[in-house]
C-alpha cells in the first residue's frame, strides 16, 4: 500500500529525512515549510495524509488545521514536541486524525500513517457491523458480542463503545466522548468517561493493564483498537 504524504515542517533537515524515510517505504512525499503552502498544496496535489507540525513559526498550527479541513479530505496527523500537552486534545477535537510526538522513529511514523490510511479505506458508510478482533458491535440491532458471546451494556456504555467503534483506531478525547454520549453539559467531568470505560472493560473482560479493545491515551482519552 502506498499513498501521497504531505509533510508540513519548517525544518529542512526534518523535511529531507522524512522525504527519504517515507520514500523508502513506498510513499509519494512532498514537503512544505509553511501553513500557506500546506493549504495550497493540499488543494492542488490532493495528498492522502498530511503530517502537520504544530510548531510552525509563523502561523499557529491550529489555524492551519482549520484552513485545511475545507480544502482536503486527507487524514491529518499532528506532530508536536510537547507530549501530553493540551495541544493533543485540542488538535483531535479540531479534526486531526492522530498525533505523533517528536522525536519519533520512521517505523513508528509509517505504522501510524498506514493505520490512518487503512481507516480511511475501511469507512464504507452504512456498514452495519464494527469488528475489532473478536469484538463485534452490530449497529442495527445494538448487539455487542465478544467471541460470539453476547455482552449486556447499559445505554450509556453502548453509546460510548459505539462512538469509539465508529472512530476505531483514532484517539478520541474525553471532551468529545462527553459531548457525544452525554451532551454539552457533561463536558469537564472526565470521571464519567473513566467510570463508564472501566465498566465496559469489566464486561468485555478486557484487562486494563493490557487492553485488547479500549486503549488509554494518557492525557487525551481513549482509542478502540482497529
Amino acid at each position, binding site marked *: 500500500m502506498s499513498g501521497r504524504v504531505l509533510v508540513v515542517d519548517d525544518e529542512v*533537515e526534518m523535511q529531507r529525512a522524512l522525504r527519504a524515510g517515507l520514500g523508502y517505504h513506498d510513499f509519494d512525499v512532498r514537503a512544505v515549510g509553511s501553513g500557506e503552502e500546506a493549504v495550497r498544496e493540499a488543494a492542488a496535489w490532493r495528498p492522502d495524509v498530511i503530517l502537520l507540525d504544530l510548531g510552525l513559526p509563523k502561523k499557529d498550527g491550529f489555524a492551519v488545521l482549520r484552513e485545511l479541513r475545507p480544502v482536503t479530505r486527507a487524514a491529518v496527523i499532528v506532530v508536536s514536541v510537547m507530549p501530553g500537552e493540551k495541544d493533543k486534545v485540542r488538535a483531535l477535537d479540531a479534526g486531526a486524525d492522530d498525533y505523533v510526538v517528536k522525536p519519533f522513529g520512521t517505523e513508528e511514523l509509517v505504522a501510524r500513517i498506514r493505520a490512518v490510511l487503512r481507516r480511511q479505506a475501511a469507512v464504507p458508510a452504512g456498514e452495519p457491523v464494527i469488528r475489532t478482533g473478536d469484538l463485534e458491535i452490530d449497529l442495527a440491532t445494538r448487539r455487542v458480542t465478544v467471541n460470539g458471546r453476547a455482552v449486556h451494556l447499559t445505554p450509556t456504555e453502548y453509546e460510548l463503545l459505539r462512538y469509539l467503534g465508529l472512530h476505531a483506531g483514532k484517539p478520541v478525547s474525553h471532551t468529545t466522548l462527553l459531548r457525544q454520549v452525554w451532551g454539552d453539559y457533561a463536558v469537564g467531568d472526565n470521571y464519567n468517561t473513566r467510570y463508564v470505560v472501566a465498566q465496559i472493560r469489566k464486561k468485555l473482560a478486557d484487562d486494563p493493564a493490557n487492553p485488547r479493545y479500549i486503549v488509554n491515551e494518557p492525557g487525551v482519552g481513549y482509542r478502540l483498537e482497529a
Partner: protein
Amino acid sequence: MTRRLAPYGVALGGAVAVTTAIGVIGLVGGLGAVPGLSALYLLLVLWLGARWGRGPAVAGSIAAFSLYDFFFVPPVGTFAVRGPAELLELVVLLAVALVTSQLAASQRRAQAAAESLAADSRALYSLATAMLRSQEVTDGLAMVSARAQELVGVDRFGVVAVDAGGLETLAGPVLGADDRKQAQWSFENGRPVGMTIKDGMVVLMKTHGGAGAGTAYMPLSGGVAVVGMDADAAGLDTLRMLAGLIGLADLLLDRRRAVVERERARGFEASDRLKAAILSSLSHELKSPIAALRAGLTALTAPRAGLGPEQRELLTDMDRQASRLDRMVGDMLDLSRLEAGMALDREAHSFADLVAGALQQVRGQTREREIGVRIPENLPAIEVDELQAGRLLTNLIENAVEWTPPHGAIEIGAAVRDGGLEAWVENDGPEIAPADLDRVFDTFWTRRSNGTGLGLAISRRVVEAHGGIIRAENRRRGPRFTFTLPLAPVPSRK
C-alpha cells in the same frame, strides 16, 4: 455670672407673683379659699424644676413656703411655723422641686446624648459612604485618619499595614522606631496595647508611660491602628467616635487585603504562563535537533536505503543513543516543570486505571519479570494530575524492572490509610544500601552507570507536588517504594 443667677431671680419673682395672685384671689373670694390655692405653688415649682433645674426649683420652693407662711398662715406677718402640717407642706414643695428637676435633668441629658449619637452616626455614615466611593483604599484610610485627628483629645491616628514585607504606613503620620515595634508586637499577638473596644466605645488603659498623652495600638485585619491621645481631654463622644473610626479602618484594611490577594493571584497566573512559555520553547529548542537526528537515522535503516547489515546496526545503535538523549532531555524538562511549581491539572482518577495506563506504557520493556497488581476493587478515587501521576508510576515500575532479575516478581499495591491513598511498588532484587535509602530520591543520584538519576527525583517531586510523601525501604525480598496521594472528594454521581 448674671446668666447663672438669672434663674434664681425667675424663681424668686415667680414665688412673689404666685403669692400676689393668691392674695388677690383671697381678697376677692374670701380667705377661706386660700389653703386650696397653695397648690399653685406646686405648679410654680414643677415648672421651675423642669425648665431651670434643681437650684432654682429649691430656691423657688423655699421662697414660696416663706411667703405663704408670712402672708397667709396665722399668725399672719410672721415666719413662725406651727405644727407638722405646715412643715409637711414645705417638705412636699421641696420634694417636688427635687424630683421634677431630677427628671427634667435626666431627660435633658438623654436628649443631648441622643443628639450627639445622631451626630456621630451621621458623621460616620457620610465618612463611610465617601470611603466606599473612593477608588483607592488609602484615600479612604486618609479620610478616616483626618476625621479622627479632628476629635478632641486625639493627637494622631495612623494606620499601618503589616505583611511579610514589614510595616507600611497607609494613613496618618509615619511611625517612629518605637511605634513600629509596638505595632508589630500588637499585630503579631493579636492584642491591643493601651486600649480596648467595649460596647462600641474605646476604653483607654494605662500604659507604663502613665496617664496623659500616650499611644495606643489596635490590631486590625492585616494591619494596626495607632492612636496617639490625651486621655484627660478625650470625652465620651471622642471615645465612641474613635471606636467607629477604628471599625471603618478595619473594613478598609480588609478590602485592601482582598485587592492585594487578587493581584498576587493574577501575578502567579502570569508567571505560570511565562514559565509554561519558556519551558515549551525550551522543549522545542532541545527536542527539534533530536527529532531530525532520529528521523534521519531511522530513515537510513530501511532495507531499501541500500546499506549493509553492519552499517544498519551502527545506525540503530546511534538511534538508541538519540532516544536516550531524548529521554534525558524529557526528564530534565519534567523536573524543571515540577521545580518551577507549575499548577497541577488535578482530577478524580481511579488508581487502578492509572496503574493500568502505566503498565501499558512500559509494556515491552518488562521482559521476563512478572508484574502483580494488588489493588482492592473498592478503592476510592484519587485526585491527581493524570500525566504526572502516570509519570510517577512508570518511573517506579521502570526502576523496579531495572533491578529485578529475570523471572523475578514486581508487585504494585495500594490501600487507604489515614484518609489518603498509600501505594507501593516493590520488587525482588538486591537491597538498597541503608545509607542510600534517602539519597535515591536526590537529583542526579543513581545506582547505575548509565542512569540519569532523574527518574526517582521526578517521582519524589510529583508526590510532593500532590502533598504526599515517598520513601524507600528494604523488604525481605527486595526494595519497596511507598508513596501517598490524596483521595478525591466523593464525586457527586447521579
